[in-house]
């Protein structure tokens, strides 16, 4: 029987109960939120389970939501079961003061650089990463540029009304 989002959701709920929240299916992709403390357990379960077999890490990235105190940073995983052709998105929210999630490098070699990139741009600390350094930016950089507090242009400019061009000011 073909694997469906319904089955994946039931298998995960069976295993992790109500620790997984925020179930939705935007544009057909099953999405859920997991606590940052068990992110690796969930990924490992998805990898090992004979029925689920999510063994391909498609993408790993971060999102910054300055308006959500206590869960400002979001780490987004896209995993893929290539045999059944099912994709899934997993999110882990972490606070800005302690942005710790467990590294998935032991599970997927591909996670190495993707986690370095997420660290580089958002400052997410991947616990257990073998070599967590900046990757695309210079090593001396002191801030995390993809966070929303860094505007694209000089905020002191007065000759240009930002509201008319793209996203005005700080989100």
């Amino acid at each position, binding site marked *: 029987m073909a694997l469906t989002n319904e089955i994946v959701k039931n298998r995960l709920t069976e295993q992790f109960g109500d620790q997984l929240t925020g179930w939705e299916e*935007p*544009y057909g*992709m099953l*999405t859920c939120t997991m606590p940052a403390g068990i992110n690796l357990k969930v990924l490992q379960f998805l990898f090992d389970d004979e029925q689920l077999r999510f*063994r*391909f*890490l*498609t*993408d790993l*990235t971060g*999102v*910054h939501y300055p308006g959500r105190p206590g869960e400002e940073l979001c780490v*987004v995983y*896209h995993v893929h079961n*290539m045999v059944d*052709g099912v*994709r899934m*998105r997993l999110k882990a929210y972490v606070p800005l003061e302690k942005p710790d999630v467990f590294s998935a490098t032991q599970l*997927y*070699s*591909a996670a*190495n*650089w*993707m986690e370095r*990139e997420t660290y580089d*741009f958002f400052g997410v600390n991947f616990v257990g990463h073998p070599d967590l350094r900046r*990757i*695309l*930016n210079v090593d001396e950089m002191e801030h995390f*540029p*993809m966070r929303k507090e*860094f505007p*694209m*242009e000089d905020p002191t400019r007065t000759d240009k009304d930002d509201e*008319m*061009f*793209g*996203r005005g000011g700080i*989100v």
Partner: protein
Amino acid sequence: MSEHNQHIQLSDESVAKQTTTLNLGPTHPATHGVFENILEIDGEKVLSAKQTVGYIHRAFEKIAERRPYYQITPLTDRLNYCSAPINNMGWHMTIEKLLGLKLPKRVEYMRVLIMELSRISDHLICNSVVAVDTGALTGFTYVFQWRELIYEIYEEICGSRLTTNMGRVGGFERNFSDVAWQKINKFIEGFPKVMKEFEDLFTRNRIFMDRCIGAGPINAERALNYGFTGPNLRAAGVDYDLRVAEPYSSYEDFDFKIPTGTIGDVYDRYLVRNVEIWESLSIVKQAVQKIAEIEKADPAQKNIFYAPESDKYHFPPKEDVYTKMEALIYHFKMVMGEIAVPPGEIYHAVEGANGEVGYYLISDGGRTPYRLHFRRPCFIYYQAFPEMIKGGLLSDAIIALSSLNVIAGELDA
């Protein structure tokens, strides 16, 4: 007179050790792009490689957060600049999916046609550069004339060659001209002979085979774990192709084969790309035929080059902008990024020339994306490079790099 102290001083540690440290790159003629590898070599044998990336990082994801959707298309050009139209179309399809737009068949076939032409040009560069790195320049200069013809086709369609900014949300900016069709037909007629000759030159060439077979191999399990996609994954023996696995833009209407290799070495990657060129050519032919059939059945279809319901997202013709009120309003609203895009979260991927090019877009309903992330296949599979060349010869490392087809623009975003 001051004593000069500009000569290179080797540290004691460096003198004492038996191996040599070699800086391959960042600007080395054999790396075809800005890649830095610090190799530790023992004679000719590579012991380890340390990679540095990010030399041409341009912060596209940050820039995209301040740009209206149509202004992001030129950013996607500059990811994999050897096959820019595929990236353009992938981006348009992402927004179309977000908006729920359905395109007419003719437009989808036109997109397929263009995407397959760019796949051919990308694979041609990759394979001929592998040949150059083994010491044979002839094939490279020979096929470049045909890559040039593909670029002329782009030029007829969108006006530019390398960074194309081709197409719009909902279709194309203008219809294919007669000259474009003539050039497409010229390509379909002339290219097979050239490709045949290119294959005759290398595929069973003793020197080429000796250089390529067994160089830079990777097995299927490691390739999957490293997030390989595209021809490099298929060369390792996994028949994963998004055009078949999750068909987009009516790929399900086309008949083509997915070639696979066995051990994922340079020769396998070369062969897989060659077969893909033939398959792409067959898809181009099918697309031309299908478009002709549509036009034959209904001549009015000849003028359809964008989805009729997409007029809110599609720039009106220039002459209308100057003469008609509505057209002027739409034009203004589009330029100012006032187009309503629903809030949503979407991941859309297309089969790029060297793997799965993905767009992860979070829209909050504003005029720019809240967050846009590009899944760049090169960035993900390039990490496997040290593992692939470990224990091999230095010259194998060079051809392994070119056969992986790592494009610096895509690597560093």
